[in-house]
């Protein structure tokens, strides 16, 4: 069996030659990747909940435009909800910050900072990340960025309200909340750069003996490619943020064209700028960013599928090649977000072509995961339920992207609810399901206890049903031509009248979805203290993290693990058990 000692609780298995750290150095300013991973994960989950709450407020206004927001409307003050009715400016704040918080403060910190930090060193048999102090710096940079973003709600004029995309020239002339957003983004981008650097060096340099690249779990590959996306795509957005800060603070005109008139008055700036420059620099990051959103989740789903079908992943090599190809292509498709900006047919055709090509590796990965189910002995554990839910939901998300990537249909669908439906399918029942699967799956490694299965099932089914209730009608609304970012949900437009009832459906779906997160929140905390205790490898998994004690001590492994085989040796013919762990010697 496993050659590591069983050690529960926080006591390290080997003290080595270090002094006992105080509370602050051990739990707050820790350089241990597991502590940092949990910090990222918990902070990320809190931000996800907060971002979701912002949306629940918006959904009231969308379902019942102009009506008094119950209970909360009276509490938010005259500048946001005078007489209890949401102001359009406040709606815009909620919209911009919902997107920003979910993407930059919620999903990526949880998926990359949380799961990547906690699992990756364990899965490659390393004692920690290559640069533990830089790891700590990256978390605190994220934390500061998050505080800046939250603080922006309380400045005069409120938080950023020019969309999470902050398009110029509106964002250039917006109130001070936008400046806070820009500074917040600088901290977040710094955090990402430090983190991605660490992940790449760790994966290349700290793999255990015998762990060649082709023996890496798919999760590690996914995090590795994601790290390259973050490393190379974020700097242009940092540059763009500097330029917008210059526009707002030094009165330059990087994004302000000549002759711009605002509320009847010509703007007193030099002009000569180009609003499209912002869009190019923004989307150069933001397109690879959406792959940053999905890749870690695909990695998690792959692990959970292999483990719960008791057979190797089908098409592992193709999946890895697809990951790499996808990562590379993600850098040359960005202007498909800009088809309507007046670009000529040549450039539009270029970006349409690259966009169609990039759908191929996604299809390969999704199909391989589906095919991996065939002939498997499927265990319907909670992680597996979420992984199985992910597959068709990501399929819907991906397929609905096709009419957006084709310029002819995009003319009608751009900036409508169809787009919102598309990307939410990919991120919500897509990525977030993958992340839930990961939480249920790796909870026993982090705590030595299992989360409750019954509560897990309730969480899954409620989330699955109500995410579809929220987002499926959006395709209908989008096809009817209802624009996004309208604070009345389209109520003042004649062409929207026939589909407005779907706003009510989506809203009740959102509030119901919230209710079904309560079992999860309760389960998460209750299980930390009262969950069923389990041994080091309760899922009978093959990857190296399961060789460490649960929870792993500082330094992770009692002795350096070695990899003797591939990552998914399940049901090997002739083996004594239906799993042959990667770290066990041949013939053990």
């Amino acid at each position: 069996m496993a050659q590591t000692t069983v050690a529960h609780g926080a006591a390290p298995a080997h003290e080595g030659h270090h002094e006992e750290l105080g509370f602050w150095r051990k739990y707050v300013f820790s350089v241990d990747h597991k502590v940092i991973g949990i910090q990222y994960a918990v902070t990320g989950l809190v931000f996800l909940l907060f971002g979701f709450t912002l949306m629940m407020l918006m959904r009231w206004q969308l379902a019942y435009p102009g009506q008094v927001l119950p209970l909360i409307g009276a509490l938010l003050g005259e500048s946001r909800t005078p007489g209890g009715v949401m102001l359009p400016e406040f709606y815009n704040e909620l919209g911009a910050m919902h997107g920003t918080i979910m993407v930059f403060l919620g999903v990526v910190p949880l998926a990359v900072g949380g799961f990547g930090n906690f699992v990756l060193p364990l899965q490659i048999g390393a004692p920690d990340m290559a640069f533990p102090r830089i790891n700590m710096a990256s978390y605190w940079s994220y934390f500061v960025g998050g505080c800046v973003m939250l603080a922006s709600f309380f400045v005069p004029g409120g938080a950023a309200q020019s969309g999470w995309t902050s398009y110029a020239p509106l964002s250039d002339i917006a109130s001070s909340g936008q400046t806070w957003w820009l500074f917040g983004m600088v901290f977040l981008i710094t955090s990402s750069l430090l983190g991605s650097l660490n992940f790449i060096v760790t994966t290349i340099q700290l793999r255990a003996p015998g762990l060649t690249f082709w023996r890496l779990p798919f999760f590690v590959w996914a995090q590795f490619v994601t790290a390259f996306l973050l490393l190379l795509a974020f700097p242009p957005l940092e540059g763009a943020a500097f330029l917008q800060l210059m526009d707002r603070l030094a009165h330059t005109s990087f994004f302000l064209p000549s002759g711009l008139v605002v509320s009847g008055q010509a703007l007193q700036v030099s002009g000569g700028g180009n609003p499209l420059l912002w869009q190019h620099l923004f989307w150069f990051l933001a397109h690879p960013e959406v792959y940053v959103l999905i890749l870690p989740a695909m990695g998690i789903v792959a692990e959970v599928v292999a483990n719960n079908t008791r057979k190797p992943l089908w098409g592992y090599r193709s999946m890895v090649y697809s990951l790499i190809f996808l990562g590379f292509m993600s850098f040359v498709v960005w202007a498909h977000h800009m088809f309507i900006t007046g670009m000529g047919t040549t450039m539009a055709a270029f970006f349409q072509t690259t966009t169609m090509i990039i759908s191929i590796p996604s299809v390969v990965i999704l199909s391989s995961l589906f095919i991996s189910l065939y002939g498997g002995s499927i265990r319907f554990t909670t992680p597996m339920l979420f992984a199985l839910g992910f597959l068709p939901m990501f399929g819907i998300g991906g397929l609905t992207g096709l009419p957006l990537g084709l310029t002819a249909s995009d003319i009608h669908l751009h900036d409508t609810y169809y787009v919102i439906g598309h990307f939410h399918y990919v991120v919500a029942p897509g990525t977030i399901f993958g992340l839930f699967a990961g939480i249920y799956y790796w909870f026993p490694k982090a705590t030595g206890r299992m989360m409750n299965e019954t509560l897990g099932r309730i969480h899954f089914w409620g989330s699955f049903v109500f995410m579809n209730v929220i987002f499926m009608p959006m395709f209908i609304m989008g096809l009817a031509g209802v624009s996004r970012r309208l604070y009345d949900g389209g109520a003042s437009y004649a062409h929207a009248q026939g589909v407005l009832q779907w706003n009510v459906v989506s809203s009740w779906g959102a509030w119901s979805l919230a209710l079904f997160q309560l079992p999860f929140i309760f389960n998460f905390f209750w299980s930390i203290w009262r969950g069923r205790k389990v041994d080091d490898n309760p899922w009978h998994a093959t990857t190296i993290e399961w060789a460490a004690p649960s929870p792993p001590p500082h330094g992770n492994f009692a002795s350096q693990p070695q990899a003797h085989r591939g990552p998914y040796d399940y049901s090997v013919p002739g083996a004594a058990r239906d799993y042959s762990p990667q770290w066990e010697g041949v013939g053990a």
Partner: protein
Amino acid sequence: MSMEIPYTVEARPDTGLTNGKLGIWLFLASEVMLFGALFASYVMLRVGNEHWPAGATYLNIPLATLNTVILISSSVTMVLAWASIAKHDFKKFRLFMGITILCGFGFLTVKYFEYSAKFHHELFPSTNTFLAIYFTLTGLHGLHVIGGMAVNSYLWGPGSKLYKTDPVHFTNRVENSGLFWHLVDLVWIFLFPILYLL
């Protein structure tokens, strides 16, 4: 720290790299993308503006040429600083690293004169798009000069204590800091003709 992270000092056999060497190159790659975005902005703004002033209209070419020579020289002294410490000559390392830092001061001093002359003539980033991108590009580059000087000063001063306990580790740090400094030089090599001479 209770455990050693492998390959911090000695290279990993199959990749032939230390963690720090790989890490600094990745960081430099991200810096290339950062300055690349600003260069792309320059290109897009210039193409989009019919009337684009020649650099000489506003900028001082002799001063910038001097700055170019200063930075190139500082890159050489940086190589010499590393070479000295690699051959265990701590005094020479101190000398050449010191000169490198002083060259950085020289560069910033020239920049200070350039900027104050502009402000004196009421030429600000807000005046026109050319000046906006000039101040932003050279300003961000200047911040990188300051950053490089800070790291080099640390290695010249308090950081040099590491040489006594782990000379190889210290030499690696000097080499990696040098790589950053050379990138700062490299960016200027492009900035100079693009902004001043075209």
